[in-house]
């Protein structure tokens, strides 16, 4: 196990180095840089002033030098300065991470709390009216675009309560914040719960046909015990994988939700930074998302061992 963890750790480092090169190069392949954008926003063209600005920001240096400046800074915790706000990039990124993390966590909790039990019920009551209804519910979760659903929720709130649940001021307390984030989390969680539900259902159906389930029933185990202790435990592995993937996605993929609900999180900030070609923000933020994705995947792999004693990585 220890060997496996060490091997995975080095693989993670290699993945992150590869990612950093990819991010760095791809960002510079996108046409235009901050200087082009700032001058375009002012509706003017002055090549000398543009060149001066590029030199001021170090964009005139060879790409290798720029990459080394970034990576060596990253090692020492110096993420550079944001081009637009002219503030340290770390100060710009750090306050946004907890906001997105809370939203992602809530969405994940909702999706698991809704998706897993409904998936089990759907499988246990296969081909019943309840099963069909839940399948329609899950299909709608997968097919409704999240921006549409989010707008529909906002419109309903404004129409029926004369109040709009968007994030305009810093919440007064943690409970206020949870209340405020619950609505977008439900909108996001609906889609994720549909995915989890469908996967739980198909996985459960497969397990419920296994011999050991029949044996458990023959031994006189209660239906609840068969379904939850015997079937679900064995059906949950693919579900854990998808939860891991969703968790990583939710850190950087909530662009639409954050925009519609005006949440000052990472995803919206990242899109805005890409628009401005604010390299220090984009590079560091994408690296952060890459780290989260790699770590979550690692944790999911570790969770397999805990959930299924048959899995041994050293083998």
């Amino acid at each position, binding site marked *: 196990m220890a060997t496996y963890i060490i091997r995975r750790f080095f693989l993670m480092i290699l993945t992150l180095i590869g990612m950093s090169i990819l991010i760095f190069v791809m960002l510079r392949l996108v*046409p*235009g840089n901050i200087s*082009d*954008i*700032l*001058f*375009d*926003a*002012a*509706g*003017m*063209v*002055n090549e000398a*002033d543009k060149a*001066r*600005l590029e030199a001021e920001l170090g964009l005139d240096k060879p790409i290798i030098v720029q990459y080394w400046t970034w990576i060596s800074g990253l090692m020492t915790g110096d993420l550079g300065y*944001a081009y*637009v*706000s*002219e*503030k340290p990039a770390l100060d*710009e990124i750090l306050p946004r991470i907890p906001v997105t993390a809370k939203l992602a966590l809530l969405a994940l909790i909702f999706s698991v709390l809704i998706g897993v039990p409904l998936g089990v019920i759907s499988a246990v009551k296969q081909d019943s009216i309840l099963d069909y209804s839940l399948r329609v519910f899950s299909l709608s979760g997968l097919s409704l675009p999240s921006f549409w659903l989010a*707008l529909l929720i*906002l*419109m309903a*709130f*404004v*129409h029926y309560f*004369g*109040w*709009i649940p*968007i994030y*305009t001021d810093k919440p007064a307390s943690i409970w206020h914040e949870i209340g405020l984030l619950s609505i977008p989390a439900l909108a996001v969680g609906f889609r994720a719960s549909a995915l989890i539900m469908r996967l739980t259902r198909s996985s459960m159906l497969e397990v419920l046909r296994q011999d050991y389930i029949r044996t458990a029933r023959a031994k006189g185990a209660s239906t609840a015990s068969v379904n939850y202790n015997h079937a679900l435990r064995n059906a949950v592995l693919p579900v854990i994988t998808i939860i891991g993937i969703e968790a990583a996605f939710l850190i950087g993929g909530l662009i639409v939700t954050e*925009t*519609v*609900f*005006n949440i*000052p999180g990472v995803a*919206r*900030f990242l899109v*805005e930074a890409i*628009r*401005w*070609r604010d390299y220090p923000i984009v590079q560091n933020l994408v690296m952060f998302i890459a780290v989260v994705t790699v770590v979550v995947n690692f944790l999911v792999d570790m969770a397999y061992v805990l959930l299924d004693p048959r899995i041994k990585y050293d083998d």
Partner: protein
Amino acid sequence: MRKTTTLAVAAVGVFAAATLPAFAQKSGGILKVQHRDNPASLSVHEEATVSVQMPAMPIFSNLVLFDQQKKLQSVDSITPELAKSWAWDDSKTKLTFKLEEGVKWHDGKPFTAADVKCTFDLLLGKSKDRLRKNPRAIWYRNVKDVTVNGDAEVTFVLEKPQPSLLTMLASGYSPIYPCHVNAATMRTKPIGTGPFKFVEFKGNESITLARNENYFRKGLPYLDGIEFKIIANRSTRMLSFVSKDFDMTFSSDVTIPLLKDVKSQAPDAICELHPQYVSRNLIVNEKSPPFDNPKVRRAMALAIDRQAFIDILTEGQGSKGGAMLPSPEGQWGMPKEVMEKMTGYGPDVAKNQAEAQKIMTELGYSASNTLKTKISTRNIAIYRDPAVILIDQLKKIFIEAELEVVETSLWHAKVARRDYTVGMNLTGVGADDPDVNFVENYSCKSERNYTQYCNPEAEKLIDQQSTEADVNKRRELVWKIEALLNEDVARPIIYHDKSNHCWHPHLKGFVTHHNGIYSNWRFEKVWLDK
């Protein structure tokens, strides 16, 4: 006796009614205003967008300013601000301002005439400090020097007479900056002498301003502060306005189709339809064959059915005009009879298009032998939508165009490189004056003339109107320039757009300017009746 008493009571009543509004303003409260995007900085002199003007203008003061309580910006609506009074010398090349005394910057340092000099030295590129971008340097091309006469007097020395200098100084784009704060700091933590102090700019979130307790106009501002909240999604902005989370929408944010939605959900909201002084125009690369042929360009100018654009895109509310904003809002717009004499502006569109077809047929084009080209435009709906209509209209004169959308941030650079053949463009104008519009967009040396139109005859006329003191004579010169620009097919104007700005009735003392969106955001007399 009774009659006398009645008269006295009536007189008191009339007096009270006349004076009541002056006492009615309530102080206090935070004005909540929507903002559409994240401004690049808050340094007015470095930017050219209302995204910066709206939150930054309350921080600053000008020497003079367009009256914030009048709807139209004009020479007659210029009011004193940091300048108490002003006077031209006999040669009309020296403009001297007497300044307010005892004014302090937000950091407590005194404001003096030296700050005015510093500001204009910065704009003229004479100071050690530099602006990253200086989009309106061309406005002051005629300013030779700014001289200081003590702490409270300053003189602008001009190369030649330029009556419109005062108009440009009255624009929201002409604030005075402090000598003791560098250009970089002004982008992130601006210091001004205006009614509101800068508190915080949280990127993508909000811009917060607080009342300047030491504002040089006693008793003002009425508000305790202003919060601009950045909401990137327009649907969310509209919903949060109708739910009364905000007192005011972003400038011109409520388009004509959106107005119906807003009014149905917030019927008491006050919404004013006004031109934004942003025109949709056609640009043609005259270096790119066959568009180097003036006949082709003329045919294109003739083919435009302006009313169709206006009907489709603005539900009939937009207006036809030349480069200058059309009347009644525009101060320099052409009368209908003058405008209709210009190529392509005649009321008989079918006749114009038949003439255009004839030109193209003479050049060898027909339905079976079309001229194939691309129409380039920015990848934003307000650019794309008119471009699509243009493609349709050009088909009538055998031009088969394909839409090429350009990454929005690269648009001006692409046009400046002449890396296009035909384009759909938008032009916004900072102040309703020919010295601003013509000089910025059509003079040979302007950095904002990204289409690089340059005609010595137009240049001469632009200079001539600039020195003309007689408004009527100047107006005639302006119309002559309009005709020349149109003949040269230099950005033929398709239409001028209009949009709505809305606020709730409890917001008082705010007036929307109807011939410019960059100069009415001082907010010093705005108050909340809550």
